[in-house]
């Protein structure tokens, strides 16, 4: 055994395209292994993605145990297995839940089903100095503004239709760009020379992206791809930042935390930084590896839930595709 302290948790993430397993203790990530599904053409096909996860879960778990073994940690040292129970693609969630149940039974350790959105938030609080932030969580399928209040992470604003990542991907596919579209749009936007007006849809604390995405696709008939990419980013991110700022004003909190894969976009980070500076509040973003989907965040949320004796019985461990963050009592935070 190395000088690890407290419980050691194995976590498995696999809600969509990324299959990832990690072992963590309270100090840090001990080891993490990832197998990423990348579609040959088009977007993520749920069945293909789950088939990918089923093909790779054995080797991912084997590798994570081998690497842990190199650091003096045996499978018998693991205190619990955590898995992403939802939200996500049903077939992918079922594959991961099955693997987690099998490990829980064979190692005879508790099972902890965790909410994927909350895992993003908690890994951000772990890996930055954020204490009680308003969270902008942006990924392929999810776009939400959340904050903690009285025992829950409350959703203050969210998309009325699709997630920002999916909106970007959809546009990118139409424009002939490869999946995932976000990073390619970010790159192309740097070569833009003018802004094209697109629908800016903020309704109270909510936003909507489908109309904007369609308008951007149509704009390609008369404008340069670079200009459309640039305008799409400027427009969409301004909507997200505006709602984040509204939640800050509404809750009176003085921190903003960015989470989710789209958080890797540097222009989005820059815009949030400017907003926070203008309001005199703090901005936090964890390093890139903790922003996209990763096994570490699942293991870490499992760790805090383990410390607060929040477990999942086998009969409650079903895949939960539309599992909302506000469905979960936050047992580990005090008001």
């Amino acid at each position: 055994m190395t000088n690890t302290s407290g419980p050691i948790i194995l976590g498995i993430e696999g809600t969509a395209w990324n299959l990832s397993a990690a072992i963590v203790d309270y100090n840090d990530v001990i080891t993490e292994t990832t197998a990423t599904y990348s579609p040959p053409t088009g977007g993520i096909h749920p069945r293909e993605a789950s088939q990918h996860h089923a093909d790779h879960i054995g080797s991912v778990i084997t590798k994570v145990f081998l690497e842990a073994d190199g650091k003096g940690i045996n499978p018998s040292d693991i205190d619990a297995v955590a898995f992403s129970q939802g939200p996500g693609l049903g077939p992918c969630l079922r594959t991961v839940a099955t693997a987690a149940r099998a490990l829980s039974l064979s190692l005879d350790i508790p099972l902890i089903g965790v909410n994927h959105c909350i895992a993003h938030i908690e890994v951000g609080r772990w890996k930055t100095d954020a204490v009680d932030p308003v969270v902008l969580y942006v990924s392929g399928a999810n776009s939400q503004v959340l904050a903690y209040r009285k025992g829950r992470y409350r959703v203050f604003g969210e998309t009325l239709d699709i997630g920002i990542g999916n909106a970007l991907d959809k546009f990118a596919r139409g424009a002939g760009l490869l999946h995932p579209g976000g990073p390619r749009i970010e790159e192309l936007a740097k070569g833009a020379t003018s802004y094209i007006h697109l629908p800016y849809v903020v309704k109270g604390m909510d936003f909507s992206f489908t109309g904007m995405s369609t308008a951007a696709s149509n704009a390609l008939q008369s404008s340069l791809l670079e200009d459309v990419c640039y305008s799409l980013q400027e427009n969409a991110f301004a909507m997200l930042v505006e709602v984040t700022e509204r939640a800050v004003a509404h809750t009176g909190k003085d921190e903003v935390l960015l989470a989710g894969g789209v958080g890797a976009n540097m222009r989005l980070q820059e815009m949030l930084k400017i907003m926070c500076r203008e309001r005199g509040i703090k901005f936090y973003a964890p390093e890139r590896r903790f922003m996209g989907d990763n096994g570490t965040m699942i293991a870490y949320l499992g760790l805090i839930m383990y410390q607060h004796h929040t477990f999942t019985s086998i009969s409650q461990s079903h895949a939960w595709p539309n599992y909302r963050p506000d469905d979960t009592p936050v047992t580990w935070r005090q008001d």
Partner: protein
Amino acid sequence: MFLSMGAEATIELRDGMVIKKRLPKGYRLEALDNLIRRDRTRTEARLTSESRRNGVPTPIIYDIEDFDITMEYIEGPKIKDIITPRLSSDVGAVVGKLHTANIIHGDLTTSNMILHNGRIYLIDFGLAYYDNSVEAQGVDIHVLFQTYESTHNDHEELISAFSQAYRQTFSGADAVLERVTQIERRGRYA
């Protein structure tokens, strides 16, 4: 006197009048920022007055300039801080009147409602627009119910008090409340 700094504007009290200034946002592209601020300032002035003419308590508008509005000062607590099922029922009646007049508020939160002389005043019409569709009215109420859920503990009681009064003042209420449940499911990952 400086009253508050909201998310998008500062509110100043001068000679008994409120001056609302929409400040530039550094994170937004200037062209987009000016467009949004000018559009919302105009919309707010126009629809605040139009709602008032339809029996919805709102401040009187005195003047409007590029990004600034001068209006009547409505003194009183925000509904956010004092909400009860009784008040939620009053909110339902006010929103019912608004929707009867084919106006969508666009940002119905309990921070945008003030209790003054026993009446609920609606403010902040910057995101308002004309629409009589069930979808637009449904989203309007969805936004309000979200504030109830995120900010108030007894939200189920508040929602039922609201719905009852909304049904009494607005003839299209049943279809709208039905749509609200569909809207909730739509944005939710599944």
